[in-house]
């Protein structure tokens, strides 16, 4: 990744992917983690699900070029593999809209500049149905305003406030911030008795 940049607005067409509890083993099967870079991860996105379901949305030409992925509950549960959001982002997705997300997936997505924003069940259902009906529907995730819009409809979205701030200010790549006051880090380490092996 290059340096941090602001992520305040993601717009484009959507890709509806229905189902609760879609785990990261399904997003990217473990055999594709046998690599020392993330390059080409997108080629194996949902590979096994797609092989078993010819009508999988990621195989549907109508959704080619989508920028927003629209999912249901507990998306990205399971393994902490960052390969999952990496594969999604490298496929071309800029933000994920869903009913809820696993915490690790949400954190990993944030760390690579891909917001995960939550809508109510009804709003997600309406959005998924609208995209399925008209795949060219323009969808717009406004991170700064915490809203998701599609055509004439607009819904309030939930984004953890700290992540919203990080996306809008471009501070989602946290390393720089974490290194800013390294003396403070040393001070905390110095106060923790186990760091010195409980020496007197």
């Amino acid at each position, binding site marked *: *990744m290059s340096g941090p940049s602001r992520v305040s607005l993601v717009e484009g067409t959507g890709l509806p992917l229905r189902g*609760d*509890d879609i*785990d990261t*083993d*399904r997003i990217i*099967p*473990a*055999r594709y*983690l*046998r*690599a*020392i*870079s*993330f390059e080409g991860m997108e080629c194996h996105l949902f590979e*096994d699900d797609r*092989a*078993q379901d010819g009508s999988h949305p990621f195989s549907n030409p109508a959704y080619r070029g989508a920028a927003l992925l629209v999912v249901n*509950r*507990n998306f990205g*549960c*399971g*393994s*902490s*593999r*960052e*390969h999952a*959001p990496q594969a999604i982002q490298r496929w071309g997705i800029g933000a994920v809209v869903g009913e*809820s997300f*696993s*915490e*690790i997936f949400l*954190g*990993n997505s944030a*760390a690579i500049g891909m917001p995960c924003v939550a809508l109510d069940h009804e709003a997600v259902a309406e959005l998924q149905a609208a995209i399925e009906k008209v795949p060219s529907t323009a969808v717009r995730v406004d991170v700064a305003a915490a809203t998701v819009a599609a055509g004439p409809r607009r819904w309030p979205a939930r984004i953890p406030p*700290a*992540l919203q*701030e*990080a996306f809008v*200010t471009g*501070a989602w790549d*946290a*390393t720089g*911030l*974490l*290194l800013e*006051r*390294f003396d*403070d*880090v040393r001070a*905390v*380490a110095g106060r*923790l*008795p*186990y*760091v010195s*092996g*409980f*020496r*007197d």
Partner: protein
Amino acid sequence: MGHTLFRKVWDAHTVRVLPTGQTQIFIGLHLVHEVTTPQAFDMMRARGWPVAFPDRTFATVDHIVPTRERTRPFLDLQAEDMITALERNCRDFGIPLFDLSSDSQGIVHIIGPELGLTQPGMTIACGDSHTSTHGAFGAVAFGIGTSQVRDVLASQCLALDPLKVRRLDVGGRLARGVYAKDVILTIIQRLGVKGGVGYAYEYGGSTLEAMSMDERMTICNMSIEGGARVGYVNPDETTYAYLEGRRYAPAGDAFERARAWWGRMASDADAAYDDVVRIDAAAIEPTVTWGINPGQSVGIGEPIPSADRALPNERASVAEALAFMDLPAGRPIRGTRIDVAFIGSCTNARLSDLREAARVVRGRHVAPHVRALVVPGSQNVRAAAESEGLHEIFRDAGFEWRGAGCSMCLAMNPDRLEGREICASSSNRNFKGRQGSPVGRTLLMSPAMVAAAAVEGAVVDVRELLAEETVAAR
């Protein structure tokens, strides 16, 4: 009002509140393995950063290592590349590595405790969701992704939001043939696979107090399967007794000072919780999953659920799971024919797990149609088991006895299911395709239940085999 262990650890490790509103938390122990770190080390090199605290960082190899033929170079060239990359990264950045030639090599969540690296009151991070295992010691331990691995390497810190704390009060004595695995599967079944999102789970109560460290690790290990990134047990005498004398644990006077500090980090008696759930452990049966997530389980005496009887918002998930598993709704899970039996993983591959499984298979034989393997969680576990003769019991019964690694839990090495095989597995995830075949099927259960299924060739109630054993002993 007192505080929880989570809150005390959080406060003790807080560096500052970041401008974004997240908290900068110091990470006391960073564990590293070959799969989720090569890209992080590359980012470190690209930015010219050193590892901030190499002496608080430890590495091992577990996910991709072959468990049958461990000589280098591996036949699997991708695996060889990954191991080579980790060796180079550890050398370049000054990180100790327990590699294949080390007696201490093994699954990262098994060797941390074994070496005494895992201690109460710490924050522990690792690029693996089962890092929650270390919470058994009263640490706040959680999985992270590769970019966060880079953050920890560079700064020994993470930017985090605090969690709420749910107390799981587990009371009562476990029935014979019922294990920690059955308790955690039951908890996940009750609270759901997303029930823990936003929470740290604090496990306590008389059942937990009576458990060994091995059992507590099994419980904490699967917290993430219930959606909770963090799960922990308050440290007590069992914890301290386990730690004393371990290689990286404090010794002598330092141990006494450590013990006092560890005790102070435990939750106060009047700590406030965001939620409290009570579980009656005495009522728990041997538990088996029938579906495609770890919350989809039943007691051995219960039928496989049907979609039309499920809650409306669960119906689609149940139908999807039954279609994938091709199991008959309404019929008992007992009697389901299996093809493979796998005893292993960071959930259940410690010495006590192997002892319980060996007790079941002793003097019996694996059913002719079943492929069965035991993969000890670490080389230490393997050696200890061999010194008790457990390997001979398993081999005599027709099990393969392997070297340490993650193996068929996630099938990144040559150990995997073929086609539609059904595996009775002591691991932690029954996701579609998890064990290496895209259409393979997993039934999660305790190691003793896996052993029983291997012998019978089908899912069976382990208590029946244990009862025969009692009769024979008389």
